[in-house]
């Protein structure tokens, strides 16, 4: 009994070190807030109804012309549209419509439809925390993926199979 008591601090150290090690190595992001949208029907949009009802998977991307990470992920959307024939709906968040249109005219427009959410009301229904954020909605209208932050090359690995699955 007494010997076990002496081991107690050591055991706690091992448990703590194990937890910290796992946190460091598992790639867990403690700042990640997750998403409750996944697995739920996509919230309604007042535009792009045809795109969302097309029976094909759709990507929904919240962006803004003032947002630098959006600039970074923009070429990826161009590629998804041109090479993968993906249907992408863009929503300009807290952005002037003319600024968003000019941004798309300058860089290229990957969107099948563009909507505007100037007061951020729509974004709340999608559980948005900021721009850019991207959702993948499957052929049945269920949200399958939710990316907070800019898409990267690595994310294509999860996006492409789901895009292909329904089309």
């Amino acid at each position, binding site marked *: 009994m007494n010997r076990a008591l002496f081991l107690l601090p050591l055991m706690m150290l091992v448990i703590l070190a194990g937890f910290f090690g796992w946190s460091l190595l598992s790639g867990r992001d403690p*700042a990640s*807030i*997750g*998403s*409750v*949208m996944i697995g739920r029907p996509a919230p309604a949009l007042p535009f792009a109804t045809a795109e969302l009802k097309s029976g094909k998977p759709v990507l929904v991307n919240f962006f803004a012309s003032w947002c630098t990470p959006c600039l970074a992920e923009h070429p990826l959307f161009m590629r998804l549209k041109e090479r993968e024939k993906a249907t992408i709906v863009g929503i300009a968040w*807290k952005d002037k419509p003319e600024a968003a249109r000019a941004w798309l005219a300058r860089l290229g427009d990957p969107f099948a439809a563009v909507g505007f959410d100037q*007061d*951020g*009301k729509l*974004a*709340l*229904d*999608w*559980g*948005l*925390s*900021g721009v850019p954020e991207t959702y993948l909605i499957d052929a049945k209208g269920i949200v399958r993926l939710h990316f907070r932050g800019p898409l990267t090359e690595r994310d294509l690995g999860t996006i492409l199979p789901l895009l292909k699955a329904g089309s």
Partner: protein
Amino acid sequence: MRRLVRVAALLLACSPAFATEPSEMLKDPALEARAREIGRALRCVVCQNQAIDDSNAEVARDMRRAVRERLAAGDRDEAVMAFMTARYGDYVLLKPPFKPGTLVLWLGGPLVLLLAGGALLLAARKRRAPEPPAPLSEEERARVDALLRRDDA
């Protein structure tokens, strides 16, 4: 004394600074008070552990507005909270709910306290009542007597 009262009154009048702007506030003070209460319990989703009531983030402002819209539409406080958790999950609650996933969080601390307290109590009781030494046997008593007698001599 009177000066002290005045200072106290002044201090009471100074409420802590909130991010909520006057233009956001509801006209009905009762509703606004409820909105404040809710705003203090909801976590801003882009800040590190800040309530939406204290945050200047865009999303926090939108959330404050949504809270007031729901309240003005006649929602109860619980319905407003449910509205937010439906969109942002339990993350949005500054006070985590009591459910199977958070049992360790809620009960872990008290449990460790109870265990440690119990162990301490046991140890203390053991120390206070040491076992009385076994009485000497006849043989031992005879030996002790013999030894004592030898010392006296």
